């Protein structure tokens, strides 16, 4: 037994030494970086006029590197499909929410939806955008799920699936449409870019919010047969 403990201690010491070396190496790598890098920032600022939005981060996310964001929406969908295909959790016990949680969630959820809409709208010209708005919507969904609310039968089937693929679907449709009318994939014409980005962001917001809440629930909402 003491032998085992000693090996454990020796192993731990070795690990700490090794990780200290890695930490030192990484810190050196960070410190050795030049203080005036030739980043992509200047290029983004130069082409910001053609992107249709005024916020450089939104311009990068939805326009210049829109392909990344498209694939990222696909990752979200695949993760949710993975969670659903694992069949959820068998013993999902629920307790009725306390009066504070119940009342507070009723008060907070409308405010959260309003905040999400604001973040989505303001994302064109200031910090904000689809991901932030989607996260706020997802938080509202988690709050509702925690206070015992579940999707009704009418919404748990086709409508929920439609919302979950809306973001990715609209992205792909917009990209392919632009490709077919003569541009490149996801290359927005500057005159249409602002509107297209807002449309795609609105769809992405709803999808991100719904996906995050669905990931939190873990189980696929079951459509109960009508009584």
């Amino acid at each position: 037994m003491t032998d085992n403990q000693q090996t454990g201690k020796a192993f731990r010491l070795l690990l700490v030494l090794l990780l200290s070396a890695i930490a030192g190496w990484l810190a050196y790598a960070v410190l050795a970086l030049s203080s005036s890098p030739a980043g992509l920032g200047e290029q983004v600022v130069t082409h910001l006029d053609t992107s249709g939005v005024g916020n450089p981060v939104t311009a990068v996310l939805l326009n210049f590197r829109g392909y990344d964001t498209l694939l990222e929406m696909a990752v979200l969908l695949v993760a949710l499909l993975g969670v659903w295909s694992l069949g959820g959790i068998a013993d999902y016990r629920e307790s009725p929410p306390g009066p504070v949680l119940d009342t507070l969630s009723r008060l907070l959820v409308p405010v959260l939806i309003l905040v999400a809409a604001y973040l989505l709208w303001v994302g064109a010209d200031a910090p904000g955008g689809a991901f932030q708005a989607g996260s706020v919507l997802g938080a509202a969904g988690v709050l509702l799920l925690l206070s015992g609310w579940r999707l009704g039968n009418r919404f748990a089937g086709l409508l929920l699936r439609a919302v979950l693929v809306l973001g990715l679907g609209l992205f792909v449709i917009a990209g392919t449409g632009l490709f077919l009318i003569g541009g490149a994939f996801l290359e927005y014409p500057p005159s249409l870019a602002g509107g297209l980005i807002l449309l795609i962001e609105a769809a992405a917001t709803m999808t991100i919010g719904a996906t995050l809440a669905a990931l939190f629930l873990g189980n696929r909402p079951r459509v109960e047969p009508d009584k």
Partner: protein
Amino acid sequence: MSYIILYALLGVGLFVLGLYALIIHAHLLRKILAINVMGTGVFLVLVALAARHQDAPPDPVPHAMVITGIVVAVSATALALILMLKVYAATGKTELHDGKPD
């Protein structure tokens, strides 16, 4: 400039701390949390280094990458948590079998 280096070094520290916890703990939930801490360290380094330029505004490309990364990390964590619950349901353990006979 110096506070940017401070943030970047803090990110490196978080990454290594997460790596240590990932190796040392056998409990799967702790491993998942450790990977999340490591990811947060990487995000912190990216966001800090985006502001390296002295008088230009911060580089928006790393910021966009971090926003994308956060959402991917959340969905990967959800998938990992479900897998952990499935392992627990199947084996009654919250650790992975290490191949040694019991």
